[in-house]
């Protein structure tokens, strides 16, 4: 692990009572959802993590409970260090605070997470879909979302598939 992280991570763990998660020498802090703004403010202002490099989510359904993890990748330009944060979130009407007040670029990331996973961000200034059409139903990157594919036509079932295909009129 990086020297800077070696000195800062224990401080943070002690101060906020957090858990850590380590995978192949990369360390992530596990932050409860209500604490995220507080932790990020401290990271930005005291520990020089000035940049939100990425924000995303993972759906662990059905293996894990709670189902969602929101993942933040913070980057310190001054120290050239990256730190990951993970926020576990329950699957029933998932919602958490928007990080827009700390890092303004969270705006689009959170719109994408809302679009793809249906996780609401309270206090977000403009929570619309960003990738899918506005009238789209459902959130496609959830593991229980149907793939929605069409049956593949072979010579034996071509006519049957063709009959169901919605051809355009002139």
């Amino acid at each position, binding site marked *: 692990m990086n020297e800077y992280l070696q000195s800062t991570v224990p401080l943070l763990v002690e101060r906020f009572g957090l858990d850590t998660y380590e995978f192949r020498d990369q360390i992530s802090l596990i932050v409860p959802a209500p604490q995220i703004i507080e932790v990020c403010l401290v990271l930005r202002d005291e520990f020089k993590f000035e940049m939100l490099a990425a924000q995303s989510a993972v759906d662990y359904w059905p293996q894990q409970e709670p189902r969602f993890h929101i993942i933040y990748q913070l980057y310190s330009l001054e120290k050239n260090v990256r730190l990951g944060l993970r926020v576990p979130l329950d699957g029933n009407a998932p919602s958490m605070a928007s990080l827009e007040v700390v890092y303004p670029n969270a705006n689009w990331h959170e719109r994408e997470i809302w679009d793809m996973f249906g996780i609401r961000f309270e206090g977000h200034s403009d929570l619309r879909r960003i990738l899918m*059409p506005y009238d789209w139903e459902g959130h496609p990157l959830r593991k229980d979302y149907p793939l929605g594919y069409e049956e593949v036509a072979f010579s034996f079932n071509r006519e049957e598939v063709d009959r169901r*295909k919605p051809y355009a009129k*002139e």
Partner: protein
Amino acid sequence: MGVEQKLGNMGAVTLKLEQVVNWARTNAMWPMLFGLACCAIEMMSAQASNYDMSRFGMELMRASPRQSDLMIVAGRVSRKMAPVLRRLYDQMPDPKWVIAMGDCASCGGVFNNYAIVQGVDEIVPVDVYVAGCPPRPEALIHGILVLHEKVRSEKVKDWS
């Protein structure tokens, strides 16, 4: 050319209206730019110097649907793009034709999922399908020549 020997000294040729109109339509067919993915690269290549689509009177790609009469749908069409594609098709003046270039535009190709339209024929009527992923420029030019054949055989009674 040889044609002047058949003219006599009158300077006039007699032809069927169908033939003249269809000849004019095929030899100055202006395609609309509709590059959506990697097929567009092959489409550009078909127009560039090596393959030179202008041999068939088609060097002029129009960025405006109002000036074009052929839409080459080159690439996958996402569900979000579908209404845009239909709108552009509706803005093209008659007569108009559509070539679905490549597997994605023809049937969805490898993208058999919720986000991609499974064949552009769900949105607009397609005249010629060109297979390939992506099709080589020769394949696209062949598709266009097939379309020319189709246009040449159109009848006056079918014009609306």
